[in-house]
């Protein structure tokens, strides 16, 4: 945030803080802190996307998929180990994975040996289908066996029983691995074509998570995930805490809620700051210069000796890892994994809005965008209601318009969101904290 | 000079930041060829854009046939008979060569096939490539399309920003020949050139711009004869 943008940046973050504090006074601190937590997570997601779009111009329309993979990691890391499931289906799953891998390896070897042409195509197809059939042969009974175990509360392979906080880096790894694969396939595509490919792949990821119940119960959801921070009830039962709360003049229940949220906020903020530090340092280094060059003109960058494909893959993987990490954090905060909630509007486009409104190419802008847009997204609801009420109050009693307004009040949320977005874009078309051009 | 057909008079302005042009005056009369030369970044293209209304002027005005046209938009100037070939991005890359030429005749309501024939005669390669998208042409071929497009307007003022950049000597000669003919037909031709000696050779008037200011002004022959101009701007 150095240089000429410093004043503007400070003002913007100051305003953001003021908004959150205002909510604390006007509504409650609990609401304000809860919002802060999601603001922090959103900011991390926006940072991840900014690394891809702002640094390198990669149009990732599949943010949702990486968020979901992070969430999946939270389940697979923290859920208790289920030996009975592994006894029932572990061997089958292993065999299926082994046959899939073997087929992939065979195909890779084949493709290296044979010259391109119809023969190679046919062989690849035959091997792929054979591998698929073999994998399914082991896979299907294994899955059936696993899903049959206690289906109403389990029916899945469980997890590793490790502390959930470990799932944050693991979520990053999951997303990175997926991104690597996606990138290998799709990064040759340009802008909007990459967009549709990533969009498609994220839909595929969600479809798999939703329908493969053995993995994480699919749409039946996993709830009651463990926590990296104490439970409110534990705090409420701790004499020390109750005494402390009372000495501050707080109701213990309320205080416990605040304390837990504050602890989450601390963890999230630490992660955010670490990532932000790395991102800023990278952007300001020759690496960042090279990325901007690639973004401006791939052909020229390649002619200047930069390995464009490798660099694209690198940022794509990095950005996705950050998004995946945020996904794991989100699931941790929710305490449950609900695949049905992943929809592109909320998890892809909203993140895009954050990056663009904040100022793409500028890390601080992305963070601010994450804060602001989440704030608006949540506050649009009461604000929309209020808008409807105030307008309604100005209208004559019982007029059809007033009637429509009061019935349609919930939809004012959309209108309000749209208005805010348009207004911000109008007055800061390059984002609130635009990318700084270093001179 | 103040009576010339097209005059950019004491133009001052820029792209939003600091001014690029500082009181530049450029004029050309019907039937005349005027050439602007100068170092890179001197503001030659900027001056051309300013005269075509693609740049807001902070001071000065542009007059066409004695009428102040400073406030007109570029497309209105086209209708007033002005035509312009920019230095870069001067073809419709996704449209075929023929469509590019047709776009040149966009404001004409009459039958323009004769004009198109003339363009094809001037640049025979374009006839061969008439169905090919202009984006797939070589650099020099594009340049020919760009000039051809401007000729299709049948303008009364033709403004060319480095029309010969990248064209082969034979085409350059033909182009200059053609420009002389165009001027003789009573059209005012204003061009920027880096092939400055050849250009000044055919020019009635020459302008040397340096750092957004008029440095030398005279007939083409005068400038060519000036040793200082030759050394500093024409490559000796």
């Amino acid at each position, binding site marked *: 945030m150095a240089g000429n943008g410093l004043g503007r940046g400070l003002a913007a973050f100051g305003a953001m803080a003021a908004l959150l504090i205002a909510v604390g006074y006007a509504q409650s601190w609990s609401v304000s802190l809860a919002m802060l937590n999601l603001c922090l997570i959103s900011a991390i997601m926006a940072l991840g996307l900014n690394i891809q779009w702002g640094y390198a111009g990669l149009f990732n329309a599949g943010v949702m998929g990486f968020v979901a993979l992070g969430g999946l990691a939270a389940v697979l890391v923290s859920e208790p180990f289920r030996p009975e499931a592994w006894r029932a289906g572990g061997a089958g799953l292993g065999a299926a994975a082994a046959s899939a891998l073997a087929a992939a390896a065979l195909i890779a070897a084949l493709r290296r040996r044979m010259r391109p042409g119809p023969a190679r195509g046919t062989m690849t197809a035959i091997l792929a289908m054979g591998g698929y059939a073999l994998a399914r042969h082991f896979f299907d009974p294994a899955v059936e066996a696993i899903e049959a175990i206690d289906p109403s509360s389990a029916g899945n392979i469980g997890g590793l029983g490790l502390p959930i906080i470990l799932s944050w880096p693991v979520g990053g790894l999951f997303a990175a691995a997926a991104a690597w694969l996606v990138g290998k396939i799709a990064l040759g595509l340009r802008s909007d074509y990459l967009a549709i490919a990533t969009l498609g792949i994220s839909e595929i990821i969600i479809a798999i998570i939703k329908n493969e119940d053995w993995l994480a119960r699919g749409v039946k959801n996993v709830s009651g995930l463990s926590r990296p921070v104490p439970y409110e009830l534990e705090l409420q039962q701790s004499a020390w805490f109750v005494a402390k709360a009372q000495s501050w003049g707080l109701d213990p229940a309320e205080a416990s809620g605040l304390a837990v949220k504050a602890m989450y906020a601390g963890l999230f903020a630490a992660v955010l700051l670490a990532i932000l530090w790395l991102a800023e340092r990278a952007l300001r280094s020759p690496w960042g210069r090279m990325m901007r060059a690639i973004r401006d003109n791939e052909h020229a960058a390649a002619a200047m*000796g930069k390995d464009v494909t490798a660099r694209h893959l690198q940022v794509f993987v990095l950005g996705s890892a950050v998004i995946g990490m945020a996904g794991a954090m989100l699931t941790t905060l929710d305490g449950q994994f609900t695949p049905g909630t992943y929809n592109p509007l909320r998890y892809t486009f909203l993140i895009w809005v954050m990056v663009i409104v904040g100022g793409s190419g500028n890390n601080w802008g992305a963070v601010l965008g994450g804060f602001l847009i989440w704030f608006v997204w949540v506050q649009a609801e009461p604000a929309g209601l209020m808008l409807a009420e105030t307008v309604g109050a100005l209208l004559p009693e019982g007029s059809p318009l007033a009637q429509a307004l009061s019935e349609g009040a919930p939809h004012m949320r959309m209108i309000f969101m749209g208005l805010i977005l348009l207004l911000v874009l109008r007055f800061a078309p390059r984002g609130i904290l635009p990318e700084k051009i270093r001179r | 000079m103040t009576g010339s057909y097209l005059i950019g008079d004491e133009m001052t302005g820029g792209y939003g930041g600091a001014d690029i042009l500082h009181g530049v005056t450029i004029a050309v009369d019907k039937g005349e060829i005027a050439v602007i030369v100068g170092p*890179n970044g001197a503001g030659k*293209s900027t001056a051309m854009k300013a005269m075509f209304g693609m740049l807001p002027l902070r001071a000065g005005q542009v007059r066409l046939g004695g009428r102040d046209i400073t406030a007109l938009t570029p497309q209105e100037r086209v209708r007033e008979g002005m035509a312009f070939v920019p230095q870069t991005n001067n073809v419709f890359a996704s449209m075929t060569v023929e469509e590019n030429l047709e776009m040149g005749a966009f404001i004409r309501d009459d039958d323009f096939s004769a004009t198109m024939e003339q363009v094809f005669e001037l640049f025979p390669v374009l006839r061969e490539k008439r169905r090919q998208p202009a984006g797939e042409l070589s650099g020099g071929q594009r340049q020919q399309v760009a000039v051809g497009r401007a000729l299709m307007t049948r303008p009364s003022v033709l403004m060319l920003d480095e029309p010969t950049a990248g064209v082969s000597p034979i085409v350059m000669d033909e182009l200059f*020949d053609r420009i002389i003919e165009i001027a003789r037909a009573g059209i005012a031709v204003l061009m920027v050139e*880096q092939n400055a000696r050849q250009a000044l050779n055919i020019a009635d008037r020459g302008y040397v711009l340096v750092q957004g200011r008029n440095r030398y002004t005279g007939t083409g022959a005068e400038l060519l004869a000036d040793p200082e101009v030759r050394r500093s701007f*024409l490559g000796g």
Partner: protein
Amino acid sequence: MIRVENLHKHFGGVHAVDGATLEIKTGTITGLIGPNGAGKTTLFNVIAGAFPPTSGKVYLDGEDITGLKPHQLFAKGLLRTFQIAHEFSTLTVRENLMMVPPNQPGERLWQAWFHGGAVREEEERIRARADEVIEFLEIGHVADELAGNLSGGQKKLLELGRTMMTDARIVFLDEVGAGVNRTLLNTIGDAILRLNRERGYTFCMIEHDMDFISRLCDPVICMAEGKVLAQGTAEEIKNDERVIEAYLGTGLKNKTPAQRAAEARA
């Protein structure tokens, strides 16, 4: 040094390069001329790895480099400029230059994050070199301007400047002269000569300005319709009938104002 053997590049029905065979000898400044659409740029593109040929081979010092990627060729010391300037428009002029040197430690993330000292030292060095180039090209007043805001000719200079930022062995220049002021072009010509003599760069340059070609190049290759039409010293080429007919022409048919004025006086 570079040998091109029976190279073809077809775009659909267009045979842009149609069986070109030629050689660029180490240490020369080879000129490449030819009518518009002769296939010169396409030849460059194939050699520099922008796209693979339809058929034929390209060798660098005897090694088959056909189909290598541009960045791999760069690593082998092969550099090119673009006919239509390819500047990095949101980088400043100086940054455009500074991004060129290969293997910068700061381009590796780990070092950028955790070895700030080494990165900074290297940056100092590169910056100094960039400033030299800027001074040489007379673009000091726009050194901190975004490259996207440069004038057409300035962008060309920047193209050239990038080749001066690294120790290339062979440089392909695609019409660096087009749109560059002739006085400056002379200076550039001097620089090319100096790079050639003092640093041993090999050049291959496309250019339409015969004076410039004559001054710098030996040999000169003339292409037409995708093939090599003629080859020789600049003098030989200038007097070659085929080249005159296809490319050089015989001058203006119309009279210039000066000539007309002289006639009128007579």
